[in-house]
């Protein structure tokens, strides 16, 4: 006599072969899946661009500020009753004697004249024009310079000398960079809100389309948590697909921009772009942030749908 007269073993083996995983209880076709994937992909793409852009600006601004703050300049205006070269020598000496100043270089008259060329054009005879002379100070990093004392010392040497520690520029750059980062954060919030609303609409649509399935699940003893988890799982998967597509596209944009900026680096326009925005490379922190945005998009998608489904089921009597 057979130990398995009704053939359960063979049926079980056949079931195992045929079924790689349990079928989802919320059918894929009942959700506007493709539309949702596209919406999440676009939102993730925009969010990644905003985040990456903010990182580029913050990075570039940091570079500008550190460059500007490591330099100071002294401008000496010509005056008829003063020996400009003598004043210049004393100012250089005073600057060299100030703790924290690493390097002092007085620009030659020709170099000072060259600074005016972009405004006055080439070929202008500047011999008769009272061109101020510049002294550039490189500051040692990590050492605090007593700018007030240096400013007083220079004023004692010549009333026509002005000391500029570039603080105003630095503050303006910081304000501009902070404003750009704030705009990016606002954009991110708006994008996340829009994505949440899109997921919410899709979830409501999916619930309406699956009303009968939800009813049957309730009748066979499914809890609200179980049903909302089924929707969460479906939307999490859709969100992950959309998020990965959007993040992939954004990464390609940043990679392409980085390559293009490297290729243009030798050209004048490339130099200006690099001066403004740095190397256009967001580096691994940037790509990590984009990957995180993709994961967060998926999590937002799954969690939003779960909360909405759970709340609506709780309200059902």
């Amino acid at each position: 006599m057979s130990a398995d007269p009704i053939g359960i073993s063979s049926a079980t083996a056949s079931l195992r072969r045929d079924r790689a995983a349990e079928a989802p209880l919320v059918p894929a076709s009942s959700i506007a899946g493709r539309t949702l994937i596209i919406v999440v992909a676009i939102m993730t793409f925009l969010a990644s661009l905003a985040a990456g852009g903010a990182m580029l600006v913050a990075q570039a601004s940091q570079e500008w500020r550190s460059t500007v703050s490591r330099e100071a300049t002294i401008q000496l205006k010509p005056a008829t009753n003063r020996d400009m070269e003598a004043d210049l020598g004393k100012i250089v000496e005073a600057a060299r004697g100030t703790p924290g100043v690493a390097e002092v270089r007085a620009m030659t008259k020709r170099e000072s004249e060259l600074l005016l060329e972009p405004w006055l054009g080439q070929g202008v005879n500047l011999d008769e024009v009272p061109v101020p002379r510049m002294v550039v100070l490189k500051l040692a990093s990590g050492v605090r310079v007593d700018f007030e004392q240096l400013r007083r010392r220079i004023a004692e040497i010549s009333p026509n000398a002005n000391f500029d520690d570039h603080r105003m520029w630095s503050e303006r750059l910081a304000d501009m960079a902070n404003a750009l980062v704030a705009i990016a954060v606002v954009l991110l919030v708006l994008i996340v809100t829009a994505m949440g609303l899109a997921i919410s609409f899709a979830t409501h649509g999916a619930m309406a389309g699956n009303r009968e399935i939800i009813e049957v699940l309730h009748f066979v003893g499914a809890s609200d948590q179980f049903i909302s988890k089924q929707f969460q799982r479906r939307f999490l998967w859709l969100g992950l697909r959309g998020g990965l597509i959007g993040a992939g596209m954004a990464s390609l944009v940043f990679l392409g921009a980085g390559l293009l900026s490297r290729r243009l680096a030798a050209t004048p326009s490339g130099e200006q772009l690099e001066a403004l925005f740095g190397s256009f490379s967001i580096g691994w922190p940037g790509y990590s942030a984009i990957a995180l945005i993709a994961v967060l998009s998926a999590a937002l998608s799954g969690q939003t749908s779960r909360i909405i489904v759970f709340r609506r089921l709780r309200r059902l009597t």
Partner: protein
Amino acid sequence: MVRFENVGLRYGMGPEVLQDLSFAIEPGSFQFLTGPSGAGKTTLMRLLLLSLRPTRGLISIFGQDASTLDKDAITSIRRRIGVVFQDFRLLDHLTTYENVALPLRVQNQAEDEYRNEVIELLRWVGLGDRMQVYPEVLSGGEKQRAAIARALIVRPELLLADEPTGNVDPTMARRIIRLFVELQRSGTSVVVATHDLGLMDQFDGARRLVLGDSRLHIYD
């Protein structure tokens, strides 16, 4: 097991569709629920399944007052009830096997734990070779049997079957009712809603709950 006391139900501001229903369903009992079309058999089944709340009266189920139950308690009670719907309510995107396993799956049981049991039950109701097909290719009788198997898989304490023989030939109808009688003998309370008087006559010993004029008449 189940007790109704002066239960009434109306939809909105309309007239009462069920009036002053008072009856009890004892453990291990078998009853037919009958009456003309539109008499409220399905509505009464929905009250028993706690998917409708009465507008007045008391319903007590498994010793608990239904009006005080929260959603989690209702879920727990439904896990003790098997239900066969008039229109089967099989999920079209799941195979016969998956439909029958559904009540166990929603209780988060691992498939390894219930696979053999589901296969055995499917073979018992004659669907052993239809496990992997979808409801759209099943005949009416096969869908009926799949729906019955789904109701039985949790070994319910109370079985509610709404017109379970409506889509099958008389021979199959008798087989299904015999199956329910077997279940009743093993301790399950069974309520079968039907308007098939001929079928009820073949199981003459069963109690009859007859709905008419919105009221319930009991013939023990």
